[in-house]
């Protein structure tokens, strides 16, 4: 009897292998998100600085990393740095560097947007009520900023997760690569590629969808 191919997912440890590959992407995404949030908060404050030159430098950084396709940036670091500086970075490290540069800039822009969307009268009203600046931050300004920032930051993290799929192109053995290895091993199963790629598609969806749904809900509730 002809095998339909879906069985490839459950042959041996194939499913565990795919999950292992997925973990490689997720690990890169999680490290990137962690670094981007911390560095992005600082970057956002720099973007709000009173010094024009500093703001201009930050703006230039943001525009440059936003302008270039992620894949080009990955190539520049992975292939270019090795050639220029002799740094032989592995794929995962290059990916974390590139995505963090990008994530930090995007996160910083979100922080800037959230902070500057708080009207000045909020600060003044807090002062009029007799709150100290520290109290004003604690009870008035930070809560409002967080409400604007959090949904967008959560959305950014799904973008980072989706972008990490690109690491396949710089020779990281992530879920697509593992999928190809499995397909190669079971090349006799004609429909195997269909089921493997469909599974990877669904896996990404199952990770990103709940996160962006959460962001959407928070946005609606706090709007």
């Amino acid at each position, binding site marked *: 009897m002809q095998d339909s*191919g879906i069985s490839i997912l459950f042959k041996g440890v194939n499913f565990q292998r795919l999950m292992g590959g997925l973990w490689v992407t997720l690990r890169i995404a999680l490290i990137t998100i962690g670094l981007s949030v911390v560095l992005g908060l600082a970057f956002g404050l720099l973007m709000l600085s009173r010094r024009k030159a500093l703001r201009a430098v930050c703006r230039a950084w943001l525009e440059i990393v936003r*302008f*270039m*396709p*992620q*894949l*080009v940036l990955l*190539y*520049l670091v992975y*292939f*270019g740095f*090795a*050639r*220029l500086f002799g740094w032989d970075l592995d794929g995962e490290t290059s990916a974390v560097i590139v995505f963090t540069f990008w994530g930090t800039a995007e996160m910083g822009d979100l922080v800037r947007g959230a902070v500057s969307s708080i009207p000045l009268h909020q600060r003044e009203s807090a002062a009029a009520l007799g709150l100290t600046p520290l109290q004003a931050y604690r009870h008035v300004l930070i809560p409002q900023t967080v409400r604007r920032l959090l949904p967008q930051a959560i959305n950014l993290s*799904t973008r980072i997760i*989706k*972008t990490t*799929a*690109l690491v*396949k*192109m710089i020779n990281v053995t992530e879920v*697509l690569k593992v*999928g190809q290895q499995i397909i190669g091993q079971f090349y006799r199963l*004609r*429909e*195997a*590629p*269909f*089921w*493997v*790629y*469909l599974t*990877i*598609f669904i896996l*990404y*969806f199952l990770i*990103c*969808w709940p996160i*962006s749904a959460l962001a959407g809900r928070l946005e609606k509730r706090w709007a």
Partner: protein
Amino acid sequence: MDWSFITAHVPDFLAGAWVTLRFGLYGVACSVVLGLLCSLVLAYRVPVLRALVRAYVELSRNTPLLVQLFFLYAGLPRIGIRLSAEACAVVGLAFLGGGYMAEAFRSGLEAVDRTQREAGECIGLTLPQTVRYVVLPQAFATAAPAVFANMIFLIKETSMFSVLAMMDLMNVADTLRTSGGRTIEVLSMLVIAYVAILLPVSVLATLVERRMRYAGFGHQHSV
């Protein structure tokens, strides 16, 4: 820098840029049409279709293009659906972009006040006429910044066409890099080529946005 290498390979990059630009634009055009149709279904709450469109928008926005392309190009042929690389590129980009464009247009449509539609009805316009002459022009003006941002995002995403064995910019660069060993020259040309494509698009987007604002579409005029 090996200038003779660079001048010798300018035609390769021009050819690659043409592939990137051409299929990027096809994809963008299909995304705009698909997204607009989807947004109308969502905004006017067309029964049944609405649930389908919602599912589609979530699927397209929560999965990476790279995975979508692998599924289209390497998965689908195994169950008898065979698309050329070029068709996969356009279908993939339209699948991804349609979801993003739908969201952009939907928020534009929702920003148009209900009274506009009622006013259209009052002066005897049919629903399609109201949509065409009253609602859409205003919705476009509000949606324009998001739509243009999506266009630039989609053109950047074309960098993934190289997995489809298309000779786009990325693939041209990859081929030259692996064969010639002139990594720095190749990467520099790659960056310049993307700047040459993306810069005019983003300048054009800014100009059109500004013009639409001058035209005063979508602004609330007091009666």
